[in-house]
């Protein structure tokens, strides 16, 4: 029987971090503690000084399959994610065709299984065709396994329509994930409205474009009781809205991307499309509020919004470039470097809470005997130098930079999917 022993790491358990060995066999954690070195088919990994915790879960990945496989596909995205320490991702439904009915969900999940490097879950659209006009096949999506509903890439702008979706999903127990950008306030905008955009003469998007949507939606949560998740939160006032909603006991959660934790609109100064995404990078005051929000837990989780685009699509003037950057490979290092979470909060934000929000049953378990062997080993003192990507695309602001922290091992369902020395599978 093949066994793996993670030796002497800081192990993240439900009772907190403990210095221990973790033994894995047959796809499950079998023991935590002092594990004897017996038997011949044993692989022992020295994890001294490393954090050994549940595999990361990204609840905001653009697989680009089906429809845009020249940017990314399930296989390339799985390799990228495994290298980033992820054992599960939630695919966003803005593919071509969009994922607004059950058979497309089944296709997405099945493709993930074929590749086999991690667990692919699928989000589904809130509205049919992601067109914002009528409800998608919510029951059909639910039956196919969708728990997170979003028109990501576009806001569900019609409050009446969103209210009906929330009433429906509240009963099922799903979560609405909102791409919170008011289309009127954002119209024609390419970056954050502030001194930088003003100097560039660039049409810009005020922070209020986000806050007006979140404030409105929180009213709808009061009305319907539906679980509500703010995607890629970008502005300081939105953090306050989420904090107040939580204080009130409403089922509101939020995610922040690594790039919003690492950069500001000041980095857009040279109009490099590698810094173009939606919502835009905002001010340093906003960035600081996002860092504080993630630390305190007001912002529950990190989500990458990994959004690949081909070189030829980004090698154009800023205003003509599509929104989005990749980031699955480096997310953990960027978060460790720019935020500096303790190991408990780190794995909570990268694994436990994302799995809970997206309701992925086999993921995000604090390590314990009997838990599924989805394990990520992270070296908080390692170095991630961003020089290349396993993605089909290269649209990222991280290239040429260095971040403190590195993923050492990723194990999915008991099989090693990444080692720092290279992808195994």
């Amino acid at each position, binding site marked *: 029987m093949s066994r793996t022993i993670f030796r002497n790491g800081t192990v993240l358990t439900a009772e907190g971090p403990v210095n221990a060995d973790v033994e894995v066999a047959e796809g499950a954690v079998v023991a935590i503690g002092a594990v004897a070195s017996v038997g011949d088919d044993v692989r022992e990994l020295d994890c001294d000084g490393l954090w050994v915790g549940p595999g990361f879960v990204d609840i905001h990945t653009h697989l680009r399959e089906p429809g845009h496989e020249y940017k990314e596909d399930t296989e390339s995205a799985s390799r990228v994610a495994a290298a980033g320490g992820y054992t599960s991702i939630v695919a966003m439904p803005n593919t071509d065709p969009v994922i607004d009915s059950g058979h497309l969900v089944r296709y997405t999940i099945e493709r993930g299984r074929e590749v086999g490097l991690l667990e692919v879950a699928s989000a589904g659209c809130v509205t049919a065709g992601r067109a914002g006009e009528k409800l998608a096949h919510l029951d059909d999506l639910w039956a196919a396994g969708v728990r997170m509903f979003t028109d990501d890439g576009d806001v569900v702008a019609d409050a009446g329509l969103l209210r009906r979706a929330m009433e429906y999903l509240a009963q099922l127990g799903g979560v609405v994930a909102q791409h919170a950008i008011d289309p009127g306030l954002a*119209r024609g905008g390419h970056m954050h409205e502030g001194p930088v*955009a*003003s100097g*560039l*003469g660039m049409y810009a998007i005020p922070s209020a474009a986000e806050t007006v949507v979140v404030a409105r939606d929180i009213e709808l949560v009061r009305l319907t009781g539906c679980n509500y998740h703010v995607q890629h939160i970008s502005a300081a006032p939105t953090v306050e809205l989420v904090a107040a909603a939580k204080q009130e006991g409403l089922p509101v959660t939020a995610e922040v991307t690594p790039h919003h934790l690492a950069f500001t609109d000041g980095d857009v100064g040279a109009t490099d499309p590698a810094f173009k995404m939606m919502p835009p990078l905002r001010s340093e005051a906003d960035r600081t509020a996002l860092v504080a929000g993630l630390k305190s837990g007001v912002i529950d989780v990190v989500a990458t919004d990994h959004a690949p685009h081909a070189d030829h699509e980004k090698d154009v003037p800023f205003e003509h470039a599509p929104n989005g950057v990749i980031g699955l490979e480096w997310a953990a290092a960027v978060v460790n470097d720019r935020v500096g979470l303790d190991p408990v909060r780190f794995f909570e934000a990268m694994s436990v809470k994302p799995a809970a929000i997206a309701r992925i049953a086999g993921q995000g378990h604090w390590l314990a005997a009997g838990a599924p062997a989805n394990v990520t080993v992270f070296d908080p003192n390692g170095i991630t130098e961003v020089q290349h990507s396993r993605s089909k695309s290269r649209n990222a602001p991280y290239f040429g930079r260095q971040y403190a922290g590195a993923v050492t091992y990723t194990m999915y369902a008991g099989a090693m999917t990444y080692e720092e020395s290279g992808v195994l599978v």
Partner: protein
Amino acid sequence: MNHLLTTQDLDRDQLTMLLDTADGMVSLLERDIAKAPTLRGKTVATMFFEPSTRTKLSFDKAAKALSADVMSFTASSSSLSKGESLKDTVLTVQALGVDLMVVRHGATGAPWRVAEWVDVPVVNAGDGAHQHPTQALLDSLTLRQHFGTLDGVKIGIVGDIRHSRVARSNVFAFATLGADITLIAPPTLLPVANSEWPVRTTSELDDALTGLDAVYLLRVQSERGGASVFPSLGEYRARFGLTAERFKRLKPDAVVLHPGPMIRGVEIDAVVADDPRALVLDQVTNGVAARMAVLYHLLGGEADV
């Protein structure tokens, strides 16, 4: 300097040197044979990805007055309409053999992108609502001719500043040269978050008018944005137009500038536009000289401007 992309990174010495060179070019243009052999054998490509009349003609004239060859390009007649990217277009033109590219583009920052892609100097002839540095040079030249200096000259820039590359270029050039600048516009046309700009702002033209040495009017750009930014052209004229009545209230030696094209009856009354104190045609003539100075320094003259 390797390129001319923005006035924001030009210091006072650089601006002054360009203006001094332009003064010489003004004299050259006044000669019987208004042509010098300075750039013989050089090729200038004027690449206008956005419509232009005066700026394109002005660059053509400037290049030819220095004996450079000119290759022209306009977006409507190009392979862009067949789906060719901006990058491939400029690389193609470079491969044809050019020594300098003049680029106008509707997208902010496009000339910077071009400058990354090609190996020749790039002159920004206007990018989005961002920068139009040769306009700022010709305006500075015009004001310096009139007042002898820009130090302490009180300039009011009136109109759609938020969406104006002319305003952005001029604010930084004028300020570097010592002028005192007031931006005058409806709240929706003032730049947002402008606390770092070296300017005062107001929406009361009538209050600001009498203190000004120069009124710089901007065209009301109805094609920009598409969104409703002020109630009506009539209301704009009533509050912000340089009408004959307002013109009378200016200081007797104050002058009026406009980058063109003027919309008579909206931002400027015809009688004002035709007054000798309106320097609009001087600006056009100076535009050729200013662009000659830029081409000279980037292509032929002393290496460092």
